Every structure is written in C-alpha cells, then in structure tokens.
C-alpha cells in the first residue's frame, strides 16, 4: 500500500527551540491518525507542514506522491470551530458549495450540478434541515457538520482536522467524529486528527503521534498512551488510568495541565 502522507527525517525548529526532529512517518489510506500533545508542542504546526503553510527545517514531506504544496485539492481541511458574524451573507448550503467549487475562477454558472452535489453532502452529514439557515445563526456542532461536508466535497485523499471538536458538547463531539471516521473507513481517506483530547475519538484511532517536550512517539494508542511512555516524554511521573474505556492522564507538568483537566471532566461525565 502506498502511503498518502510520508515524512522523512522531518524536523521543525524555531530559533533555538526544537519542536520535534528526526520524524519518519507514513500514513496509509484509510488510516485514522491522531496527533496529540500539550499546547505549544507543535501539533498545529505539524498540520501546517502538511498544508504547505509551514516549511520543515530539515527533511521532506510528501503528500499523495507530490511534495507538499501551499494548499491543495487533494486535502480536505476541517478547521477549529469559530463563530461567524451573524450578518455573514452565507447560508449553510453556500458554505458547503464553496467547498465544491469555491476555488474555481469566475462566477458560478450551471448551478444545478453544484446544487445536487451540495444536497448530497448535506444529506451525508445530516444537515438538510438547516440548509438555508445563515451560518452565523447555527450552533457550533451544526457548523462543524457543515465543515465536514465542505471538506468532503472534493473527495480528498487526506482529511486534515485541526481540533474540530473543540468547544462542542459531548453529543456533537461524538456525531462529528463518527462522520469523520465514516469517511476514513468507507472512502479510504487518510485522516490526520489533531487534538489535545483522545477520548472522543478513542474508538476510531489506529495510530497516535504524541508530541511533548521536543520528543515524540508514534504507535497504537495502547503502545503510546501508557504511564511509561508519557512519563518519558514529559520527563516527569505521569499516570495513565483506564476507566470505562476512557483514558485519564494524571500528573501532567503545569504547562500542559489545563487542557488535560478537560479530560478529567469529560471522563467524569461519562464514567
């Protein structure tokens, strides 16, 4: 199987500070790949490398057989949820339509074909009921469903997700991650899912890249999310506890704690 994403000897440094170095990585079609780590560990920068918005300090990054380029149709990108201005002249279906042909020059002629595709995508993510609602008046969860639809419009080889579940409630977290997983399994897209919180996607993740303290570890969740590995990455005693199929990480260093506190509360609600 040819990998869709391929990094060789990749490293990234800003001045004296090395985020990570010597990263060799292959991500295969149909693989659900999570990128985890505390704030400032370079998760988002990792995504930017694949998007061609950030150059590697050393090494190469290849996406679908081509060196990464600044923006690409082979990529579907699901960003963090951000609120739209309530006046934005854009309805749910218009946002999705931008994913279908927004990159083309000129004015949209022959809209029937685009409309059909948009209807299909809205149906796929269960957004048909609010197709005509202005995006500024939708809830965060509804917006993220549209983001998924928008990203799937070009049937991308790789789906890059940048904390797409942030600020969503538990129910929407599950809905949106299930949608992304479906694309991964049914359409064989590789999913690169950047998150600080593995629990909502625990059932789907094939492999994990955990970045912390200038070091990293790649492997299945069972291999990486252990007391030994995380303690080594953080250079201090970190305890990983399993409860009801959820992971609770205890004892993270101060700089990394506040996000993982969320992990406690989420796990608390479920357990």
């Amino acid at each position: 199987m040819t990998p869709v994403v391929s990094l060789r000897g990749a490293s990234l440094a800003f001045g004296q500070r090395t985020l990570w170095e010597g990263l060799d990585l292959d991500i295969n079609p149909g693989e659900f790949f999570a990128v985890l780590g505390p704030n400032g560990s370079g998760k988002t920068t990792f995504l930017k490398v694949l998007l061609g918005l950030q150059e590697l300090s050393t090494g190469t990054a290849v996406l679908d057989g081509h060196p990464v380029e600044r923006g690409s149709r082979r990529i579907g990108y699901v960003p963090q949820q951000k609120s739209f201005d309530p006046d934005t002249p854009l309805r749910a279906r218009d946002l999705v339509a931008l994913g279908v042909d927004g990159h083309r020059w000129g004015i949209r002629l022959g809209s029937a074909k685009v409309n059909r595709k948009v209807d299909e995508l809205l149906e796929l993510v269960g957004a048909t009921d609010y197709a005509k609602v202005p995006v500024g008046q939708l809830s965060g969860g509804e917006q993220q469903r549209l983001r998924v639809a928008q990203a799937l419009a070009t049937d991308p080889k790789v789906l890059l997700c940048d904390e797409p579940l942030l600020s969503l409630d538990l129910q929407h977290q599950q809905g949106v991650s299930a949608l992304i997983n479906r694309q991964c399994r049914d359409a064989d897209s590789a999913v690169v899912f950047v998150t600080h919180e593995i629990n909502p996607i625990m059932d789907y993740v094939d492999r994990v890249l955990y970045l912390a303290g200038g070091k990293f570890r790649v492997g299945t969740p069972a291999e990486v999310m252990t007391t030994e590995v995380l303690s080594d990455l953080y250079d201090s005693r970190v305890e990983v506890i399993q409860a009801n199929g959820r992971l609770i990480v205890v004892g993270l260093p101060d700089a990394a704690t506040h996000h993982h506190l969320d992990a406690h509360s989420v796990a608390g609600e479920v357990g």
Partner: protein
Amino acid sequence: MDLGDLLHSIFNFENYGELLVLVQNSIWAGAVLGLLGGIMGTFVMKRDLAFAVHGISELSFAGAAFALLIGADIILGSLAGSVLAALVLGVMGVRARDKNSIIGVIMPFGLGLGILFLSLYEGRAANKFGLLTGQIVSVGTVQLQVLAVAAVVVMLALAAIWRPLTFASVDPDVATARGVPVRALALGFMVLLGISVALSIQIVGALLVLALLITPAAAAMRVTSSPRLVVTLSIVFAMTATVGGILLALGGRLPISPYVTTLSFLIYVACRMIGSARARRGLNGRVVRSAGAVA
C-alpha cells in the same frame, strides 16, 4: 428664509421636463455608479472593509485636490490617490487590528493633504467644494464614457475572481488550505476598490462615498443571507439611491449628496426594521420538524 423657501430650495420641480433632458448624462452616471457600488459593496461588507473605504476616499480626495492644484486631470489624480491608499492597506494591513490602525493613521493625513492643496488652489470655489460633496450637473459625454468603460472593466475583473474572492473573504483558512491565493486576491480586490472609490467620488464626493459602497450592501444583508439576493438587492438599493437622489435634486440648487445619502439611509432603516421583525418571529429558514422527529 422661512419654511416655504427652505422646502422650495430642497424640492423644486419647475421646468422638470426640460431639466431632465439636460442632465441625462448625470442620470446615466448615477446608474452606473449605483450598479458598481452595489456590487462592490457586498464584498466590502464580507471583507469588513467599511473603514478602509473611508480611508481610501480621503486619500483619493487628496489626489484629486493635488491634480486640481497643478492643473492635471482630476479623475487621474483621485485614481492615483485611492489606488495608492488601497495598495498600502492591502500590503500592510493583513491582520484586522493592523488594518484599522493603519487606516486611522492614513485618513487624517490624506484629509490634511487635501485641505492643504485646496487652500493653495486659487481657482473657482465650486471646484473645491465639489470634491468633497460631489457634483453631478456637469457630467459631460466624454466623462460619462470614461466612467462607463472604467466601471465595466472593474466589474469584469470582479466577475473573473468572484468565486475564489468569496471563498477567501468569508472563509480564509479553508480557502488557503484549498490552494486559493488569498493574499493575491486581497490585493487585487483593494485595487478594484480603489478604482471604484475614485469613480464614486466624481458623483457623491469624498465624504459620502460610504453611502454608495457600504449602506446598500449593509441594508441588503439585513433582509437576506442568500448570496445572490444580497447582490441583487444591494444593486437595486444603490441605484435607487443614486438615480432617485439625482432626480429629486434636479430642481433645487443643492448638491445631490444629501439626497443620495438620505435615500440610502432610509432604505437601510427600513431593511433593519424588516430584519429584526423577522428575527423576532424566529424565521431563519430552519425546517422545524415535530418534536419527536428531531434527532
């Protein structure tokens, strides 16, 4: 002056038919600018550039005043001023906060320069005043042709970048990920905006450009979110304001800008009222299913 005289100087429809023939060119010019302003305005609103329009128009005014002073072509002067300002904003003001402070710096500087040039100018006073408040009665055939051609060129260019510009305006992160040249489009749009501002200044003057490039689109966005309908309504509103304003101003001896801006303002107020009435009733296009069916 009593109230009757006042009204008479504001609304006067004597010899209306004859006057109408005389100002044909002006009406056409108003229609062209309405069309252009209505279309451009939708992007100005989407890109949050209302304040930038104001800044560009002050520099455009300075350019025109300079041209007037040295006896050069006023249109060329205002074009040079506004395109320069637009490019500076496009290059420097990438982030919203930067943009606003840069505009705040440029705007008084441009206005100051303009006033300096006007004070040095020793020609007719009407020429001076016209740059700020607009002049409509004196649109010649050649001027109209230049205006129409320039407007058509701007609109064609805008049509060519319409979709990626929309994408880049409302959703810049995802557009970048898709390979849309967000930066280049921003610059290109600023140039088109600069030209549009310079053209509009000919009719409504530097101070009131906002009434053409912002109010109609802002009004349209209060009543609909459909991108096509926003553009259509914005054009209709802008043309109503310009052509209507010229027709009302015809008989009086006042500049047209108060008529144009008042019409524009009234349309906005009406749209706002319609918009909030609709919001109160919760009509936003959502399909409401019976309680049991909602997932």
